[in-house]
């Protein structure tokens, strides 16, 4: 599985997206804190966090005896740069070309 596959797989689950949303609002939370927001066993939450960690979307940082979970936005940025920018930029340049084309036509008609 590639890094990108892991990110898409991790995002293809509503519980994991909910966990990411929780961390987006405030990260650096412990498993216990995250667990209290979900109607799910501790083990279930742990499993989801592991998938998010494997995808690099969550980074666990040790702080004394606790493990704090941080949201890592870089994998989403990489997907944005690889997949989204490509198409939006394409559209922008297509529009720019159309504008140029129309302007040129307009000039020719003068």
């Amino acid at each position, binding site marked *: 599985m590639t*890094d990108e596959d892991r990110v898409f797989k991790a995002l293809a689950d509503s519980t994991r997206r909910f966990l990411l949303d929780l961390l987006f609002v405030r*990260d*650096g939370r412990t498993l216990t804190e995250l667990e209290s927001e979900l109607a799910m066993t501790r083990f279930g939450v742990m499993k989801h966090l592991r998938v998010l960690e494997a995808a690099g979307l969550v*980074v666990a940082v040790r702080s004394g005896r606790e493990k704090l979970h941080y*949201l890592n*936005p*870089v994998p989403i*940025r990489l997907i944005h*740069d690889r997949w989204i920018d490509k198409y939006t930029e394409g559209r922008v340049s297509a529009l720019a070309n159309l504008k140029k084309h129309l302007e040129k036509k307009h000039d020719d008609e003068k």
Partner: protein
Amino acid sequence: MNVYRVHIQATPQAVWEAITNPGWIEKYGYHARAEYDLRAGGKYQAFATAQMAQHGGPNVIIDGEVLEADPPRKLIQTWRVLWDPELKAEGFTRLTWEIEEGLSGITSLTVTHEVGDAPRTAAITSGEIKQAGGGWSFILSDLKTLLETGKAMSASAA
């Protein structure tokens, strides 16, 4: 505290060079040249690009101090934005760069930015403010592209 991690197909030494060597730093992200005096107490300064200078503002856009330099594994520094009075007033934040060698030529770079007392600095570096251009996520994504392909994604835009 904000945490950013990226996995790069490159050696730890190459990643270290890319984040500390002025010639490399200006090749990706915002293309601002930066200089480090890589020893505890050494100076760190990032300079305005020609484009930034056209908009006015200071020549030194970010400053700080090296707290610990352990090539090619760890760099701890302070980091303060100077181009805006309100950002400058938030003072120095702490920035830690950690480089770890992984399996099959993959190196991980983790950037930890302690911005708990600097909400405005947090907003521009986390990408929350769109006009600031993406912050650390953008910089690290571009750094990965540069090291893996030889060409930064931002190169065509700059």
